[in-house]
C-alpha cells in the first residue's frame, strides 16, 4: 500500500522520498528479514568461532549424513523455483493465472513438507545413535541451527498454505496475487539460510 500521491511528492522533494514508491509490506518484510539475518548470523558466527576454538570438530562432523543433507538442499532449491514460478505467474497475471499459481504453490508446500519429513528421519537416525543436543557442543549447534531453520520452514509452509487455500476463492485471488510476493521473499530467505547451513554443518 504505497502512501499518498507518491510521484508528485518525489518530484517535489527529491530522491530521498522515492522510498514512498516501495509498497509498505515489501519494506516491512525486508526489515523483518534484516533482523532475521542478525539472528541466524549471530548463531552461525558463534558456531564458526567455537568450532575454530575446538579445532574443527571433524570427529563429530563425520557422523552427519551429508547425502541426506544434499538431497534436502536439492528439495529446498527446487521449492524456491516453484515459489518463484508462482510469484512470476502472479505478477504476469495471464489467464489461468489462479490455477497455475495454486499448482506451483502446492508444489512448494509439498517440497517443504518433504524437507521436514527428511529432516525428521535424519534426527531420529542421530537420536538412535545417542547423538542428542546434550551430546556435545557440535550437536548442540547442529540441533539449534537446523532446528531453528526447520521451524522457519514450518512457518513458511503454514504461510503458503493459507495463500493456497485463499487462492481457491475467486474473490480472494487478487489479494493472494499481491501477497504471494511477500510469502515468496520469506521462503527464499529460508532457502538462503539453508544454502549456508548445508556446507557449514555437512561439508566441513
Amino acid at each position, binding site marked *: 500500500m504505497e502512501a499518498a500521491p507518491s510521484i508528485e511528492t518525489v518530484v517535489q522533494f527529491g530522491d530521498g522520498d522515492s522510498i514512498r514508491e516501495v509498497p509498505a509490506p515489501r519494506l516491512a518484510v*525486508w526489515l523483518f528479514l534484516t533482523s532475521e539475518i542478525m539472528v541466524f548470523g*549471530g548463531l552461525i*558466527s558463534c558456531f564458526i568461532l567455537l568450532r*575454530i576454538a575446538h579445532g574443527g570438530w571433524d570427529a563429530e562432523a563425520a557422523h552427519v549424513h551429508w547425502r541426506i543433507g544434499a538431497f534436502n538442499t*536439492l528439495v529446498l532449491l*527446487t521449492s*524456491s523455483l516453484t515459489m518463484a*514460478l508462482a510469484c512470476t*505467474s502472479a505478477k504476469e497475471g495471464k489467464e489461468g493465472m489462479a490455477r497455475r499459481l495454486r499448482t506451483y504453490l502446492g508444489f512448494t508446500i509439498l517440497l517443504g513438507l518433504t524437507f521436514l519429513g527428511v529432516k525428521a528421519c535424519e534426527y531420529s537416525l542421530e537420536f538412535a545413535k545417542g547423538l542428542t543436543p546434550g551430546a556435545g557442543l557440535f550437536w548442540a549447534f547442529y540441533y539449534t541451527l537446523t532446528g531453528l531453520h526447520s521451524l522457519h520452514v514450518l512457518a513458511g509452509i503454514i504461510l503458503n498454505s493459507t495463500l493456497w487455500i485463499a487462492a481457491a476463492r475467486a474473490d480472494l485471488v487478487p489479494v493472494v496475487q499481491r501477497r504471494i510476493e511477500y510469502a515468496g521473499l520469506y521462503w527464499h530467505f529460508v532457502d538462503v539460510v539453508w544454502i549456508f547451513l548445508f556446507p557449514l554443518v555437512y561439508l566441513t
Partner: protein
Amino acid sequence: MQEKSAHLVGAALDIRIWEWLVGLLIIGLMVFVMPIPKVVAIGLVFAAAVVKAVLVVRKYMHLAAEHWLLCVLAITPVVLIAGMAIALSPDIAFRQ
C-alpha cells in the same frame, strides 16, 4: 551468469537460475568428495554457497531491481555480523 540470463524473463529466467543453483550444488558436492586439501575445499564450497545466495537474493528476491534502501537493509546486517565475528575471534576462536 547474469549476462547469460539477461535476455531471459519470467518463468524461463526462474528456471535458468534454478539450473545454476543445482549446478553450483553439484560442484560443491564434487569438491567435497574429491581428495583436495581441506582448506581449498572449504573455500570453494563456500564460494559456491555465496554465489548461490547472491543468485537467489538478486533474482528470486528481485533485489537487483529494488530501491537502494532495501539493498542497504540486506547488506548492513551481513557487514555487522562479519564485524562482530572478527571482534570476537581473539576472545572465542583464537584465545591463548
